[in-house]
């Protein structure tokens, strides 16, 4: 599907504090026009209303909207399901933050919420496609632990290649023979603090991760 839009460029940046942004779970038809207009204006691929409904009716719990006051400034739309009868996989279909609000971690927060919901629903991995030229999105997903699993040749109709990005959740059997993992995660936690990441990551998520390992 379509690449996500979150660029690092800060032209015409809106003045606001991160705490002024409200994140709301999809809550019915009245949200649909907001999502559609955001996606329509920011992404090039055209989607019919049925595509939007396909996602938000079946997986409303994976769809979030970001509001600054009354204004909807960002959204994420996802799905999940069995992939080739082997893997329960989450999929990020659309991620948009409007230009003046980019670079402030809104997209990271939106997508983090969706990924958390996927993890809680038992997904083993999350995938998406992003244009190889969309550096902002690639960096964002890289920070969240996605790897570039494949390159898809001329994936978009505009002739641009895509990367298939993939995030694999820790699996119990994977870590069982690895005694040093706990140490590593501790040190990572520490480094996260040192390097002063501005991205908002809920503390309980790190706890969850550590408890798995």
């Amino acid at each position, binding site marked *: 599907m379509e690449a996500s839009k979150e660029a690092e460029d800060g032209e015409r940046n809106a003045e606001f504090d991160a705490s002024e942004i409200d994140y709301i779970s999809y809550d019915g*038809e009245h949200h649909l026009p907001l999502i559609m207009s955001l996606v329509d204006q920011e992404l090039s691929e*055209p*989607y*019919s*209303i*049925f*595509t939007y*409904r*396909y996602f938000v*009716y079946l997986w409303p719990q994976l769809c979030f909207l970001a509001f600054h006051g009354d204004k909807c400034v960002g959204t994420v739309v996802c*799905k999940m399901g069995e992939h080739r009868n082997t893997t329960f996989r989450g999929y990020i279909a659309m991620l948009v933050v409007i230009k003046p609000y980019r670079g402030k971690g809104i997209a990271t927060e939106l997508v*983090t919420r969706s*990924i958390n919901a996927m*993890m809680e629903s038992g997904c083993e991995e999350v995938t998406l496609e992003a244009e*190889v030229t969309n550096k902002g999105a690639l960096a964002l997903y*890289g*920070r*969240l*632990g996605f*790897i*570039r*699993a*494949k*390159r*898809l*040749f*001329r994936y978009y*109709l505009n*002739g641009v*290649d895509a*990367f298939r990005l*993939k*995030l*694999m*959740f*820790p699996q119990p059997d*994977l*870590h069982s*023979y*690895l005694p*040093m*993992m706990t140490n*590593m*995660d501790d040190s*990572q*936690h520490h*480094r*996260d603090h*040192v*390097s002063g990441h501005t991205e908002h*990551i809920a503390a309980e*998520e*790190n706890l969850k*991760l550590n408890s798995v*390992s």
Partner: protein
Amino acid sequence: MEWKSSEEPYVNTSTSHSSSSIPASESTIWADASPLLEVACRELQEGELIHGENFNLFAAMSALEIMDPKMDSGIVSRYCSVDEAIEDGAAPVPISFDKTEDIQCIIDIMDHLLACEATWHKGHSLAQTVFSCMYLLRPERTSSHALLHSYCKIIRATCKAVVSVVSDARTHEEEDLFTMSYGLPLNGDGDEKCLSLLNAVEENILRQLRACKTSSTKRRVTEDVEPLQTNLDLEEGYCKALLCRLRFRKHFFHLLTSMKRPQGRGLELARKHIAACISELNFIRKSSEFLVSHACGTCEGSKDEKTTASGRLPIGFDASVNTRISAPTPPRAIKLLSWKNAIQYFEKLLCDLDSVCSYSLNPSLDVLLRFVVQFQKAEPDLVARAHLQLLLVQDGKLYGRDPIFAVIARAAGLPDVTRDHTIQRKENVVQLGHLVINMLKILCTNSAWQRRKLGKILQDWRVIYVQLELAFRKEFEEVPSVLDYENVTMRILKNILTWVEEQTYWIAYRFLILGFELELYSPNEYCMVYWYLYIVLRKLAEKTHLKMTLSEAKQKGKKRKDSPKDLARETRIPPAVIFLQCQICLAEGLTLLLAALRNELMVLQSPNPFNSEHERFVQHFELLQKACIPDQIPYPLFMESTSHVCFSTIVMYNYFKDALKIAKELKSSFSNDPDKLAELRQLEQVAEHNSIAFSIICRVGGLDRSLKVSFEPIHHPYFATAVVKRS
């Protein structure tokens, strides 16, 4: 709001459906759905639909919103059909009754078609590019205009030839838009005889050119030749502009036909046509100056984006005219390559085709694999890759000539008796032959697709290895009394096994390094990637060496006595193996340097909320691990070999110095191999720069926290150069 109707359908069992072709059965019943639909129609709002359980993403994505210009390809842009457009005068024949104007327009059409053709080759649909030309769509309409008619004919014939090469090669897995041509008149009546008409037209223009030259030098006109157009001052320029365009088409068509000849018999001839094409392209480019200066009604827009030499808009094209026929035409407008870029595209294509044609059809698989890898470095497009693939594999034979078992026998260094040995009919060996052919085809695909396929076939190679090994053991159990070197089957199997292993590691190596080319690795994953590359390279070197030793043993067996010279050669490590050792040193050096930086300076780390390095490791190397490359549990092994690395330990040994030394020494061994020499020079540069960076980082790295180190592919596509800066 209800999107999906959950109401039970009204069942009207009394309705008779005896006339229906599908009778009701025990599990099905015919029902009249009209009442349901009526209710639904009353309740449905705009944007709602009734759907079955199987309504999925694909169905949702296939839905169209009528009259949305981004989706509705049926929306009338200008004309409903080609015929309507033609009736409206969008593609007149002749284009103008003013002969000069007519010629100008025809040249514009030719140029725009070249841009369309290049755009098509670059991945857009035929219907939206070349066949947006209405003159091509109605072949009979141009018959009164010999020049236009001959050009349209050869364009259709060329498209047909290119489609056939690409479909035959089937290298277009992800590029299937390319060959879709339903509903397009690719088989125009008499198009196969396009060359005779084109030759006649060319001959005529040549005469016109000669005539105008003689008249311009005031000599008596010997021939009664009607000029091409009315303005005699421009006659020579227009004749020349047309001639190079016609000749380019002629040679390009000949080139395609020559390359298709079986067993590479037409390659030499093809090269002559390539040279002619390049020279005509040059004339075409030069004609621009003349055409621009005499163009009237120049269109707006940047000169570099124009699709014609004159800069004018061509007559007779409509990209949306095919939207209602079955060939795929996404409703959005596409951006055509400019005329200048189209010429560049064809020059590149010709250059790629020339390197295919210049290949000597060497029977050695090693040489062939290196050639294909080298060929792919130039990033050839689909058309060139398809030609290469068709040349390599024809009728299940290499070059349509060498049986695949003979190729394997040679590659594995099997004894000569093998040629007629029954072993080649063994199921596993036949299977191995299929794997080799499949691998060759994969190596001709685009690198994104190629990497995925190489990753997948690793497992097939592993399975065949295990099966052959079983066969080998069985053989050994059946004839235990015979010494193994006397058992030919056993010797053959042993050589094949070694070769299969070597080949498997070669595929794994390609798989890993293509990841660099495709930019699949981020710098914080470099440490694990170089570590894996190091493991694979070591195995590859080991197996290559073993294979070479085995085949040398075979050659030695033939000679009677070992001379002291032979003994010396025996102890010498083959240059191909030393070349790998140079890379091993670089991979190991980079792994350790990256590990020390990570462990001591905490750089190139990527803590993230959802997983750890372990998951990323598993994801990147999943396909290698499935094929047991290497055999043991790799992540703990990786951790074991890198988690304790620190500057104080690695400073003891600078692997880059070794790599540098090897690279310098090796040069003399490859003095006849320019490609290898070029790569050696690259490796040498990486080794030299990294050796210095390594010393600096080790000396001050642990103390100086302001040191910034990045790894860039400056000197080599996959061995990064360490760049040290102080922040």
